[in-house]
Each structure stands twice: as C-alpha cells, then as structure tokens.
C-alpha cells in the first residue's frame, strides 16, 4: 500500500464508520455496567511502525487486552485495551466483587474471563453496527485476553500490515465513564483493518481509493 493513496477524505470516511461502531459498543458497555459511558470521536491515523509505541502510551505500558480477528469482506484485528487498574475496576463493577482482581499477579482467571466476555460483547456490537452501515460481512472470531506490554500485544495485529507496508491504519476510540473526571475506566478500542480491506471498506462508503 502506498501511503499517499490514503488521503484526508479517506480517513474521514473511516472515522465516520468507526463512530457508528463505537457508538453501539459504548451503548453495550453502558448496559452492561448500568451506567452511562462516553466515547470520543474516533481518531483515525496512518501510524508508522516506529511511532506505534508512543501512540500506545510509550515505555512499557502494561495493559489488559481482549484481542480478536475480524473475518469476512473486511479483515483485521480488534483490541479492547484497559490499564490494569481500569480493567480491575471494570471487572469489579461487573461482578460486584470487592477485591481488586487484576491489581497484582497472579490475576484471577475468573476476572480475565469476565474481561474477555466484555471484549466479545463490545466487539460484537462494534462490528455488527459496522456491517449494517456498510452492508459488508464482518465476523468476529472469539476473543482472547492477555495481560502484557501494549506494544507486544498490538504488534501481533501489525504482522498482517507488515507484509505490505510500514504503516498501520489505526482507528482508535476512547471510552470513559460519563461525568467522571478522575477516570479509571479509560478504555481504548483499537481497530486495525488489513491493508487489503481498505478498498472494500471505502467502496462501501462510496469513496474511491484512487481519486
């Protein structure tokens, strides 16, 4: 993929689509937690590999991440990531558990499994909204949850990109609890569509790749 082939117009189209998906995912999360969730307008960029680490919080930021692959007309990787503290609060809320299950290792497998389920649900609503809007087929694989360095986790999703380019199209949506300043539950929804999916995705939005 040539980086120049992707213009501002294309990024806007991606942003529009992601906004719809993220809206549905935020609603799903609100329902799960029974409290209103806010989400940012998605940030859509072509990020060079060498800047990816900074983008993920730099250093050796450790996160809890649910990862799944997208299959169908559009393929790619989807990550739902939270800091350890954030994931801990999320699981706490969800299970009404008073302990902080993901604060320190060994991490409770029940807590990780609950987090993974949240990942599944959010990804499902994100993708089904996208599918409905674009009339494309998008299926999530079952998600897997790991606790590790953000960079190491996301690099896994970059392998598909790395065969074609040194950039990744990153669609990043932040999710936060509404009206809560000191926000712990600061989640990121990271969608990395594979380069070969740019064309069908844009086409479905009525935007041409070379124009």
């Amino acid at each position: 993929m040539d980086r120049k082939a992707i213009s501002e117009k294309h990024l806007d189209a991606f942003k529009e689509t992601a906004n719809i998906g993220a809206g549905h995912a935020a609603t799903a999360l609100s329902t799960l937690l029974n409290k209103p969730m806010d989400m940012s307008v998605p940030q859509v960029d072509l990020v060079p590999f060498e800047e990816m680490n900074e983008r993920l919080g730099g250093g050796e930021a450790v996160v809890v991440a649910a990862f799944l692959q997208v299959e169908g007309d559009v393929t790619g990787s989807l990550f739902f990531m939270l800091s350890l503290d954030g994931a801990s609060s999320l699981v706490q809320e969800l299970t009404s558990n008073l302990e902080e299950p993901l604060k320190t290792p060994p991490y409770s497998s029940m807590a990780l499994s609950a987090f993974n389920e949240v990942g599944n649900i959010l990804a499902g609503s994100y993708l089904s909204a996208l599918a409905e809007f674009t009339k494309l087929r998008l299926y999530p694989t079952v998600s897997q949850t790991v606790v590790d360095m953000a960079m190491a986790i996301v690099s896994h999703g970059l392998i598909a990109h790395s065969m074609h380019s040194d950039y990744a199209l990153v669609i990043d949506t932040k999710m936060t609890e509404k009206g809560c300043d000191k926000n712990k539950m600061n989640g990121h929804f990271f969608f990395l569509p594979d380069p070969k999916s740019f064309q069908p995705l844009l086409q479905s939005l009525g935007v041409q790749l070379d124009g």
Partner: protein
Amino acid sequence: MDNIVKVSMADLKMTTPPMKLRTMGLGSCVGIVVYDEKTNDCGMAHIMLPTSKLCKPENLNRAKYADTAIHDLLLNLKKKGAQLSSLKAKIAGGAQMFAYSNSSESMRIGPRNIEAVKEELKINRIPIVSEDVGGKNGRTIEFNSMTFKLEIRTINQEMKVI
C-alpha cells in the same frame, strides 16, 4: 538515560561503547544483537517477519525481515572492520502471545521468526551465545556494548541477563 540508542519496530541501529541498545515490546518479533568482541561495535535489529522473499523490492524496509536485517547487521560490522570470526549473536523474542488457531498462519509468526533468525545466523556462521525466545510474554531488551550483556524484562518476572 542518555546513553540509550532506541531501536523501534522494523528498525536497525549500530552503536559503540558507552552506548546501550534498547528495543521495547517485542511480541512475536525478534530482537537480534550482533557484536564484535574485539572492537565492541554492535548492532541491534527488531524484525517482524521471517523472510523478505515475498516482498516487492521497491518498498523494502530491510530491517523488517530476518534475512535482510541480519545481512545488513553483518555488512555494517564488516564496514567497521570486524572479522567475521569475532562476531557473536544474542537473540530474544518470538513469543506466541495468543493461542494458535489454524485460521491464520500469522498466529504462528513468533516460532517462524525464531527459526528464520537462527537459520540465517547459521548460514553466516555467527554463533548464538545466548537466547531467550518463545514463551507467551512480551519482552523489552537492552544490550550493553561494554559488557555484551543482554537484559531482558518481562512483566511480572524478574529481569533476566543473558
């Protein structure tokens, strides 16, 4: 912190004492260090894929692939006057962060990267002095060009020195 040369993903850097080489967040990627024991010249590459053979040559980032990255590391060291016989290697990374699923070959990329790196070093007769590869966890590595020690950090584990 000033004496650290940062190596990004799909990147290759050379250095000399007193500098250290560091790369962060190695997942299925592999960090390769090749150093000259006599001159202390050294280089580190952070590769993502096993081979450049499937890639179009016009937009080839040589540091991204095991074969081309190792080739360049050796070439850079030779340019500095290194004898091939005094070169040594240390490698780390190649984890399999997620469980294997047959739907995608890319899931197995960690083990394939390790294999490719070892094969390429063997072809060039560069001995691997020590390694910390495989497993499930991400790694951050730092190579000291004075002591030739490679420090490996993994979450929730003590730092390893190899």
